[in-house]
């Protein structure tokens, strides 16, 4: 992947980082990776709690036609990512209203939306001859060529997502854990779930630029799922998810700098290892989740 042969680590971390950061593209990659990891870790906890990982995956897939359409039209791929992801989030948000009383039907609808939009992406790529060499980077991520402008856009999007989540976090948490009681308390659960999907769309649009469209799960769901295995307390779990996502991204980028394989592979493998270790930890320690959740619900009421 590196043009001038692969560099070799000196195993002195400080020297290695100094060497990596002598390349502006690596500095940008680490900046972008950090922004994405923090946002994905926080929103990922809500995704796992609300059991919306299929929706998260679908939104991630949608960024592929988004990027392909942007390239076809001739604008920056960043706009394509955000427009398509937020648009698809709004479509997914309307499904429960369109398919009232068909809870299983929703997954079929989500799957249909996803496959159709992926097919659109393929059509755009086929119509735009020549982008095929970039297809793999689009699907499996690349840390080469993250521009400073892209980092600025990622920072702005992360800020919006995190501030909004901080504002609606408490009612959203309540509505996620106990929808019936939350609704009885006058919490607008429908509005919140639409808002959450839009935030999720924004976060997946960000993450897919780093991990690639197909591997967003590695940052969005795996760290949060691992954190939830370890602790049921939201604040602790969110912090842990952010730390895992952050560590996985940094190590993944560092390894990918030295080896000629896609960064997405290292990031997914590390995140999956974290998840497996967390499950093992929970199995050894036994499950103490139920009392913590009921205590939490008591506090929220």
């Amino acid at each position, binding site marked *: 992947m590196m043009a001038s042969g692969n560099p070799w680590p000196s195993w002195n971390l400080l020297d290695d980082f100094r060497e990596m950061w002598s390349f502006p593209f690596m500095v940008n990659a680490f900046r972008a990776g950090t922004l994405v990891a923090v946002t994905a870790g926080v929103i990922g906890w809500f995704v796992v709690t609300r059991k919306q990982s299929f929706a998260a*995956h679908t939104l991630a897939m949608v960024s592929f036609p988004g990027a392909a359409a942007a390239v076809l039209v001739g604008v920056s791929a960043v706009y394509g990512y955000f427009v398509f992801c937020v648009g698809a989030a709004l479509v997914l948000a309307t499904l429960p209203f369109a398919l009232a009383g068909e809870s299983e039907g929703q997954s079929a609808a989500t799957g249909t939306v996803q496959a159709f939009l992926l097919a659109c992406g*393929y059509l755009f790529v086929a119509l735009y001859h020549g982008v095929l060499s970039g297809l793999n980077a689009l699907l499996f991520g690349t840390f080469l060529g993250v521009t400073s402008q892209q980092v600025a856009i990622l920072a702005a999007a992360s800020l919006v997502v995190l501030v909004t989540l901080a504002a609606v976090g408490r009612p959203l948490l309540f509505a996620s854990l106990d929808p019936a009681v939350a609704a009885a308390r006058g919490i607008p659960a429908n509005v919140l779930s639409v808002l959450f999907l839009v935030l999720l769309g924004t976060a997946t649009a960000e993450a897919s630029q780093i991990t690639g469209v197909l591997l967003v799960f590695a940052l969005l769901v795996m760290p949060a799922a691992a954190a939830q295995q370890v602790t049921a307390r939201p604040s602790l779990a969110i912090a842990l998810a952010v730390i895992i996502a952050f560590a996985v991204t940094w190590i993944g980028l560092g390894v990918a700098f030295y080896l*000629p394989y896609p960064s997405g592979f290292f990031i997914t493998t590390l995140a999956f290892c974290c998840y497996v270790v967390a499950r093992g930890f929970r199995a050894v320690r036994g499950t103490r989740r139920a009392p913590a959740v009921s205590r939490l619900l008591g506090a929220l009421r």
Partner: protein
Amino acid sequence: MTFFSELAFLAAVPVAAAAGLTGYFLALRGQVFTADALGHTAYTGAFAALLAGIDLRAGLFAATVSAAVLMGVLGRRGQPDDVVVGSLFAWILGLGAFFQAIYTSGESTGRGNAGVAVLFGSIFGVSAAHAWVAAIISIVISLAVLLIARPLLFASFDEATAAAKGVPVRLVGLGFLALVGACAAEAAQVVGALLLLGLLAAPGGAARLLTIRPYHGLALAAGLAIGEVSAGLALSLAVPTIPPSFAIMAVAALVYAGAATFHAARLRDRWRLKAGSRELITRQHAATPGQGPGADGY
């Protein structure tokens, strides 16, 4: 119609029937996400096979069937958990990217497009032998699904009662997942690893919305799938700039949207009917106060 397009129809129509039948059960059991995961596994399996230098289809089948059974075993009662499925397939997909990077780094030309063919399908490039094998395997899958349809329906609608009546619920669930795996491997050759989800989800989901009678639904799902694939292939033959995978997905999505509209309209009618009769009852009670139940805000 040329020889190659005839072969495409020969391979695609039985695959569509198998996808429709398994897809109906996937929609019924809420396991569409599992099908999605199998599509991704198919990608990794294909590249593992290419890398090992064995037949691509062997890799597809080995990967999807074993992943399907693994997910069934990991999940509760043969029903995989979303996060387990998602984490597993995201990692498998990362592994596939790794295999692809190794495979394509060897030679610059020719191999570079293998990824596109695996991900998005290449039905018009199918050979006669492949088409016949695909057709025979798909017919076997369809027959197997029909064979276990009765216990599977029972287990899907009411798992507890089915188990109490002696239906081996877990075994049926695992067997079904293995069939889905085989079907995914076949469908991957028609529409590609990424789009096979649509072939599994859209016809089955549409059939679920159109009828609540299970056997009608099964037949309808298979029929819709065959119709959608045939229409998509015909469209792609008529307009060569449209890739066949896109044409099939577009038709499938359109049919699904139609089914959803029909379902929503029917729900609205039913709701109106109910609201109307409620109003009538309230009015009657208002005319003769104090008689019968429901006068107070039914």
